[in-house]
């Protein structure tokens, strides 16, 4: 016998304490940085634990393309095991966390776990003559099956796997996507499935379906972001490489033909040399940028690092006609970071500040101890500042306001700061210059947030 149930919208007005407890546990776990597998485990646990819905076993199928595949089956393997497990789990002091831990071991630990039985099961959702349980997912219907052996609609292989006469199929879906299917039974207690159980199961199913759909969307978005970033990178590299290559190609061709006067040959070689240096520079910057993830934070002397950067000849040249004020507190504690990358980050920020500042302007570099845990380096200019539209995009890859900018500098600084366990803050308004604050963690004993 098969009974069909409409998918009940959860009744949030319900005074049923179990329903509220379930909602609270499940929704809390969704906000934790758990993996999707862990969160599904929370759902299966809620469905099978005595303090939750209290089914004996919960079987999970997930969709993979147009296939519905058996993935996990949670519950004791026999009536004897059921007895011992439930005794343990009903001991006072055993909470949800312990039950979930126990269930994780049950699902993943043993080769002979129930999951091994369900894993070979798979149904194509594309075919027309679907059997139970797949039809529940395809039609998004909750099905309560009784006397399953007499039901021609039930897949014989599935029946053999589940081995009980009565079970409940709960489809997992959201909007147009079928996400999976949960099958519940009371194999050991033989307690008939009641309408109250069905209500609670539908509530869990609804949450699981929506959660799985949200995760799917989230993953798709991350993938698209990666693709978009890759696209931007390709466009950027194309530009950085094609111009020098065109120049090198053209001047080389001149050298190879007799169309060039003797006196111009050396000039051509010099141009070619310069363009090759430019290509090298692109490669160096890209490599440096891509390497930052290597975390090697050591205690270093921030003042010494800053002072050596300011001696950089390139910066000295840029700072002609600009007043550079350096004020670093005496006896700063050592800070954490990779000194090479941090130095390069300083160089980047100071170069930016100098470039943004008009002749006669001023760039201020401050080093201050904020508190026990943080030292802050501020690089401030009184240049033209930036509108919010620019400020918002400052750390985006390949975003630059400079004609020949690579758009990697500030992103590099941000990544260096993050790799050092610190952060960067920006403050700027049009006409009021810009101020970048770098927060470094101190390397001292007795940090209060260590």
């Amino acid at each position, binding site marked *: 016998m098969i009974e069909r149930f409409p998918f009940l919208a959860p009744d949030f007005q319900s005074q049923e304490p179990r329903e509220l407890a379930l909602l609270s546990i499940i929704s809390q776990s969704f906000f934790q940085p758990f993996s999707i597998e862990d969160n599904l485990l929370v759902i299966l646990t809620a469905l099978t634990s005595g303090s939750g819905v209290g089914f004996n076993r919960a079987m999970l199928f997930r969709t993979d393309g147009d296939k519905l595949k058996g993935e996990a089956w949670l519950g004791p393997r026999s009536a004897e095991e059921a007895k011992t497990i439930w005794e343990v789990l009903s001991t006072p002091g055993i909470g949800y966390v312990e039950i979930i831990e126990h269930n994780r071991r049950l699902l993943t630990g043993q080769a002979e776990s129930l999951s091994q039985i369900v894993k070979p099961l798979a149904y194509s959702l594309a075919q027309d003559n679907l059997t139970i349980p797949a039809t529940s997912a395809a039609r998004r219907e909750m099905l309560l099956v009784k006397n399953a052996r007499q039901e021609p609609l039930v897949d014989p292989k599935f029946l053999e796997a589940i081995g009980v006469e009565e079970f409940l199929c709960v489809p997992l879906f959201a909007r147009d996507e079928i996400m999976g299917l949960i099958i519940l039974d009371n194999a050991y207690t033989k307690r008939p499935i009641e309408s109250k159980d069905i209500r609670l199961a539908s509530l869990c199913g609804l949450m699981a379906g929506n959660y799985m759909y949200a995760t799917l969307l989230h993953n798709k978005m991350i993938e698209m972001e990666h693709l978009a970033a890759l696209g931007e990178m390709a*466009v950027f590299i*194309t*530009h950085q*490489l*094609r*111009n020098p*290559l*065109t*120049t*090198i*190609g*053209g*001047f*080389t*061709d*001149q050298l190879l033909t007799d*169309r060039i006067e003797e006196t111009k040959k050396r000039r051509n070689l010099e*141009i070619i040399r*310069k*363009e090759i240096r430019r290509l090298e520079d692109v490669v160096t910057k890209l490599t440096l940028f891509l390497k930052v993830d290597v975390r090697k934070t050591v205690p270093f002397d921030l003042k010494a690092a800053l002072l050596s950067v300011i001696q950089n000849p390139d910066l000295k040249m840029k700072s002609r006609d600009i007043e550079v004020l350096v004020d670093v507190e005496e006896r700063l504690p050592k800070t954490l970071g990779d000194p090479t990358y941090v130095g390069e980050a300083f160089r980047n920020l100071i170069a930016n500040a100098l470039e943004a500042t008009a002749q006669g302007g001023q760039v201020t570099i401050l080093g201050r101890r904020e508190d026990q845990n943080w030292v802050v380096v501020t690089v401030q200019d009184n240049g033209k500042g930036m509108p919010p539209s620019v400020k918002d995009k400052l750390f985006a890859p390949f975003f630059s306001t400079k*004609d020949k900018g690579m758009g990697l500098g500030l992103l590099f600084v941000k990544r260096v700061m993050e790799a050092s366990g610190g952060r960067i803050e920006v403050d700027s308004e049009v006409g009021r210059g810009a101020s970048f604050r770098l927060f470094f963690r101190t390397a001292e004993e007795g940090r209060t947030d260590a």
Partner: protein
Amino acid sequence: MKKILIVEDEDALCLLYKEELALDGYDVTTAGNAEEALSALNREKFDLIITDIRMPGRDGVELITEIMGLRKDIPIIINTAYQSYKQDFMTWAADAYVVKSSSLAELKAKIRDLLNK
């Protein structure tokens, strides 16, 4: 002698194009940005314009739009490092689209085609 205006912000490329096209028998003027190009167009009459797209200040697309408003009859070749602008319908107003390459053969062929029409 046919007169060509080259709009390109890279000095080395300007020099290369100027020399190469002069050797092919054209009278070449170069401009480093859109403003210089527009003032050259005010001064003289050109038979062909070759322009980059990504340039400081007004970009090549804006320049083309302005030139079209001034004199519609001058053929324009877009010469850029980016393949992607080809999809931008604003660039369809140009007569040819040549992606920058280490060989100038394609650019020279397009110039010949457009000037011999």
